[in-house]
């Protein structure tokens, strides 16, 4: 009897489990796995994308966000097949590498004829997608980025011998959709610089990348107080770029000719960082090794904290990180009590590095299942979504300035985020009636002008997109020639700055080191291992000395004791 009861119970349980499975199967849910940098998207974007997806396709979707910390980690995991992800957001050189390995699905987000309708991209969407609700956003992407990428990478050859397409060439713009971009520059403590007497446009423009090497650009040091206060990035590529620029400016490459036969002195920024040859590597190695005695250390994550707590004064930094650090550094006591930012960001005017991160689809994905991927990538290029990501992340979105300026929702989001007085955009709702930007007080009334940091939207627009203001003659003038922390849109502001000598040509995109990768890694290891080793030898010397002294002292003590005892014994002897 008992047995039959338990059998029935088990049967019942089985039924329950089965029906649960069946219920799961009935309500099919799509999945999208996003493999991205940590903190590199606005959290709410994912939820809102899920709502948007359901609206356009009528299907539910679940998104999963997986993160990586370096391009190298991401590359290793992708090439070993450790991860099953749908979209990845690597940097441009890692995309080059993935194309060479033939590991990416072509996207064709941009048309060959620049019509920006995305004919192939949209025609591949399945019947689930409501074509009336879908709007192709490739026209919003900054054309300058695509030009830079094509100029630097041109046609990439597939180097994977196992691939059927071995030896064929690919265009990077067919495979990726730009997401965010930024520059490489120098984050520094304005207050300390002023105390050292080097917070001066002329001095800094003379030193340029030499700031990281405590070199004033005229053969002297920038300031003795800077020694031991410089932070370098613990990243091979960024440190390499900064060092090559420094070598070029300081004339250390003047008489040298590269392996390609072109003298280094005639090279542009892009040519310079991509000309990786043995002679140059040797120079970089020596410069980095010698730089050690000027350094506070190498940082990966702690650079901002060390600068804010005055442990270090200078740091090699990316623009978004720098902007975040500058915003954090507001100090009310500065500027005679009016308050000012303690930190500043400086992109040397001579040469610089500009980089891009973009979305790609690894070839491991099922090609019939790309609706979610495509809708997601396209969704991120909507001006309002981009504006929110810019606010959240600090880097510049690939969506161009004009598209953002033309979109009311994007403007409202920026106006709210930066407290801009813009009564005409005071309240914005999304499709579901939720408020996404609100410039009203608790009672629903528009706020008064004095409640805002910025006077008007026009003023803010000049500041935000062009890093300056308009003078009476209509020229764009920078607020602060030394600080580039607001230089978010080099593509929008480079040509228009009359007072600024820099142009987009001074910013180079860095390719993958390719065959030279191993040599660069070896050189970097060598630079990190050597230099400043005098202290180790000195340490050995001092320890040897200390041990010798200690042993000598003990020996002396024992000897003295014996001599003393001997004397006592002698005296005892005479007594007898």
């Amino acid at each position, binding site marked *: 009897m008992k047995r039959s009861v338990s059998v029935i119970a088990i049967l019942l349980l089985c039924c329950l489990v089965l029906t649960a499975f069946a219920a799961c199967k009935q309500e099919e849910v799509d999945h999208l796995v996003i493999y991205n940098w940590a903190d590199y998207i606005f959290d709410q974007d994912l939820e809102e994308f899920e709502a948007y997806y359901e609206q356009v396709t009528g299907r539910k979707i679940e998104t999963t966000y997986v993160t990586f910390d370096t391009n190298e980690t991401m590359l290793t995991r992708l090439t070993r097949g450790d991860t099953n992800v749908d979209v990845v957001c690597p940097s441009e050189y890692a995309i080059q590498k993935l194309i060479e390995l033939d590991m990416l699905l072509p996207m064709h987000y941009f048309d060959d004829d620049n019509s920006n309708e995305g004919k192939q991209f949209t025609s591949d969407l399945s019947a689930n997608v409501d074509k009336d609700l879908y709007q192709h956003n490739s026209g919003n992407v900054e054309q300058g980025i695509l030009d830079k990428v094509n100029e630097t990478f041109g046609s990439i050859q597939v180097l994977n011998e196992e691939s059927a397409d071995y030896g064929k060439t690919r265009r990077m713009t067919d495979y990726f959709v730009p997401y965010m971009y930024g520059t490489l520059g120098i984050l520094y403590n304005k207050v300390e610089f002023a105390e050292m007497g080097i917070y001066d446009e002329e001095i800094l423009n003379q030193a340029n990348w030499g700031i990281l090497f405590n070199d004033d650009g005229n053969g002297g040091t920038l300031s003795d107080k800077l020694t031991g206060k410089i932070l370098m990035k613990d990243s091979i590529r960024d440190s390499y770029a900064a060092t090559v620029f420094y070598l070029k400016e300081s004339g250390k490459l003047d008489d040298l000719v590269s392996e390609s036969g072109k003298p280094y002195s005639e090279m542009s920024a892009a040519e310079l960082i991509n000309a990786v040859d043995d002679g140059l590597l040797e120079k970089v190695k020596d410069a980095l090794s010698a730089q050690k005695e000027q350094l506070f250390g190498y940082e990966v994550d702690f650079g901002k904290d060390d600068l804010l707590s005055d442990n270090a004064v200078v740091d090699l930094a990316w623009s978004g990180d720098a902007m975040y650090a500058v915003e954090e550094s507001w100090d009310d006591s500065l500027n005679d009590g009016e308050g000012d930012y303690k930190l500043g960001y400086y992109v040397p005017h001579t040469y610089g590095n500009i980089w891009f991160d973009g979305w790609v689809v690894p070839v491991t994905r099922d090609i019939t299942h790309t609706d979610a991927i495509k809708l997601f990538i396209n969704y991120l290029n909507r001006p309002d979504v981009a504006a929110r990501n810019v606010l959240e992340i600090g880097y510049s979105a690939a969506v161009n300035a004009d598209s953002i300026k033309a979109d009311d929702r994007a403007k409202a989001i920026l106006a709210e985020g930066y407290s801009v007085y813009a009564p005409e955009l005071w309240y914005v709702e999304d499709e579901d009636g939720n408020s996404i930007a609100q410039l009203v007080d608790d009672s629903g009334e528009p706020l008064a002008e004095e409640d805002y940091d910025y006077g008007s939207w026009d003023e803010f627009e000049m500041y935000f997109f062009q890093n300056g203001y308009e003078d009476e003659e209509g020229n764009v003038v920078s607020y602060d020639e030394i600080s580039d922390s607001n230089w978010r849109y080099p593509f929008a502001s480079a040509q228009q700055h009359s007072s600024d000598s820099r142009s987009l040509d001074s910013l180079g995109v860095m390719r993958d080191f390719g065959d030279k990768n191993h040599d660069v890694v070896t050189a970097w290891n060598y630079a990190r291992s050597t230099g400043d080793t005098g202290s180790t*030898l000195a340490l050995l010397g001092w320890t040897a000395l200390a041990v010798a002294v200690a042993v000598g002292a003990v020996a002396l003590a024992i000897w003295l004791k014996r001599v003393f005892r001997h004397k006592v014994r002698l005296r005892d002897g005479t007594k007898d």
Partner: protein
Amino acid sequence: MKNKPKFKFRLTRRAFAYPYMIFMLLFVVVPLVIILINAFLDDNKQFTFQNFVEFFSDAGGGLTVLGNSLVIGLVTTLICLVIGYPVAYFLAKYHASSRVFVLLFILPMWVNFLIRTLSTKALFMQLNVPLGMGTVLFGMVYNYLPYMILPLHTTLVSIDHSYIEAAEDLGADKMTVFLKTVLPLSLSGIVSGVTMTFIPAISTFAISEILSSSKIFLFGDAINMHFSKTTNSLGVGSVMSLVMLLLVILSNVAVNLTSKDEEVSAL
């Protein structure tokens, strides 16, 4: 059901060790074999000796780093020994009240060492001490001192007191008792203390990274860099790991040799 299974699992006491043995095989032996294989592979997975050539020719500064690490490890061990021996000696001598003191020495080890090191850095920054060789040495000694004291303490406590009494009865003064009786009897403790300090000291990377802002670059940092910061220098990193492994084996051999000597002398 007629055929009996050839292998029958019997629940003997030995069976309880199998899970751990399987664990060891999977997570210690297999990784070591993978490292060994990687040391002989180039970027394209072809057999090569190039990794060894690269390391021993000091192309990436690997040998220099090894030299620096050995020096720093040696100095750390020496300082730990000089500080740790007297501490262990007196803890052992006043045995009754020492349990509390021993606890005091073990107590910091219960705090995660990264947290301890980070707070040490914060202290140094607060006191305006420049980060560098001095701070790294301090951090090393601070972290590894318990590993020196504990084996020394164990050995010193286990010394039979009658040896010392015998030496005293035969007319040895305190210094002679220490030099001729206690010190030789505690030799095995010294060797295991030295090994337990020296090996982690040359392979650490977190202490030097935090307490010198990565400026002092040790062998552990170099191996870490080869594996985590770059995609295609696993080969050289594996060679470096093998060198590290060799050092560990050598020091274990040294420990075994001294303990054997002791057995002989004890007879």
